[in-house]
């Protein structure tokens, strides 16, 4: 293809071609086709939109929050919704709830990102190693997984936080420690179906070792179902973090963590309902957004659909 012809080709045509000319283009085509099928899912796009907004809010928190989230104004406490200068009112110490929500989004994203980095990776590692190696290693790793699975998540997290001390980092660690077993189970189940397939046999016949087979051939097929599971679990993770905050074992005052805000508002819930309700609604919205996104991702990523 000559240079001028290449320039005439639009970006869209370049992305939709059936005959990619380079590795880079092939990858871009696969990504773009995934995006096209994802973007037809209205609810998933809605979820993605909310999460992008959340990300932007967290990023520009100092610019968009009307007040300092920590500034107390006791003469102005428990103001109702739409009061002067405080759209969502103020809490028991006269702090602006909207500003606290905006700063709280940073904490929520921080927890979600850390847990999403730790738990699925640990689960993937344990599950694929157990599933591929089989034998006694499989038995040992899976029984450990079973032990973790047998505890209720919040109770185990509580025990960890109690042992490690209260705080947001320990809450993240505790939630991660309780969140990885389901990922290990999924990864192992996927590995068991993949390990005896012909394409794994074929790469074995090229002399590939176990490490290469697990990391380059099994992981790419497990990751899509894990991503879906992570996005569906995000709601649970946010709720667990909020639950720990609510019980006073997660983020500590005066940190504007949403669960801790509900906990503080609980004392006034009958007379000043918005103090607890507004952060509750924020948790609800973000959890819903993650669930919708997860649902849409499942449609795009599920390899059994025969898609990309």
């Amino acid at each position, binding site marked *: 293809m000559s240079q001028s012809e290449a320039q005439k080709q639009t970006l869209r045509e370049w992305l939709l071609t059936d005959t990619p000319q380079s590795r880079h283009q*092939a990858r871009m085509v*696969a990504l773009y086709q995934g995006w096209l099928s994802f973007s037809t899912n209205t609810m998933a796009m809605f979820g993605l939109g909310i999460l992008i907004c959340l990300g932007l809010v967290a990023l520009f928190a100092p610019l968009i929050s009307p007040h300092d989230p920590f500034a107390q104004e006791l003469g102005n406490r428990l103001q109702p919704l739409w009061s002067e200068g405080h759209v969502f009112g103020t809490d028991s110490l006269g702090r602006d709830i909207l500003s606290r929500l905006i700063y709280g989004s940073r904490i929520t994203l921080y927890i979600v990102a850390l847990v999403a980095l730790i738990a699925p990776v640990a689960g993937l590692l344990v599950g694929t190693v157990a599933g591929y190696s089989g034998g006694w290693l499989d038995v040992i790793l899976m029984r450990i997984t079973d032990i973790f699975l047998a505890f209720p998540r919040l109770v185990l997290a509580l025990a960890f936080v109690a042992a490690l001390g209260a705080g947001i980092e320990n809450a993240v660690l505790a939630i991660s420690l309780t969140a990885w077993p389901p990922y290990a189970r999924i990864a192992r189940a996927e590995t068991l179906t993949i390990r005896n397939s012909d394409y794994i046999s074929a*790469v074995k016949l*090229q002399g*590939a070792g176990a490490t290469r087979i697990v990391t380059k051939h099994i992981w790419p097929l497990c990751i899509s179902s894990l991503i879906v599971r992570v996005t569906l679990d995000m709601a649970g993770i946010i709720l667990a973090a909020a639950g720990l905050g609510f019980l006073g074992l997660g983020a500590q005052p005066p940190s504007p963590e949403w669960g801790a805000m509900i906990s503080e508002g609980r004392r006034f819930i009958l007379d000043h309902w918005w103090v607890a309700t507004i952060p509750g609604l924020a948790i609800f919205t973000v959890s819903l957004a993650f669930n919708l996104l997860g649902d849409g991702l499942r449609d795009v990523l599920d390899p059994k659909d025969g898609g990309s």
Partner: protein
Amino acid sequence: MNGISVKNLKVWFGSGKDRIDAVKDATFDVPKGESFGLVGESGSGKSTILRAITELAPNWSGAIHVAGKTLDHTRDNEFYKTLQMVFQDPYASLHPRHSVDQVLSETLYLHGFDNIEKRIVTLLDDVGLGPSFRFRYPHQLSGGQRQRVAIARALAPEPSFLLLDEPTSALDVSVQAEILNLLTDLRAEHGLTYLMVSHDLAVVGHMCSRIAVMQLGEIVEVMTAEDMRAMRPSHPYTKHLLEASIGYSREAAADIVA
């Protein structure tokens, strides 16, 4: 002896009470350069022999020699450089998330080749696929094109032996002929030795010079392709198989009824 030689090969699955003997005392020789066929009904142990040779079925005893070397239960890279396998179902033998380019470049990398870019183009050309197929994913290919990619992958290490596990049974009839012709051409070009498994007597009769007939894990007869085409079986099961391959005939039906 520099071909493939199998002596008293036993292959089993499971152990104790659950043990199933898939192959019992199979013995045959494939001289270098020959094309040898294994036929038999489903479950007769044809594919299992190939899987024992490649160590994909690790529970075997007996003696296997390939290119003058006696095989034990380990296979090194050098072995995989002399012997490769093409699998039955091209829809299952290609990784769904790897492009043709990834499949071939990984194979070439694992065998320590240099000049990978150029070799990929040559390989694709060898199996009748143009360079435009290079960056496609399996779901963008037809069954026949996938099988060509699988053949290219098997040819990448430049082996002298190719095990073919029913390479055309998952393809429709028109594509079957294309793949069989491709395999015939490649054999002539590269001087390959084929050990081919099939349940289709016509395919084996076309491709192979000698044929072993298997029944319930045992080789009941080794015959030449001429004998087979002339319908000169010496074992009753072979006769049965040959008659079944012709399809319905009034005489055969009358025999069964009578």
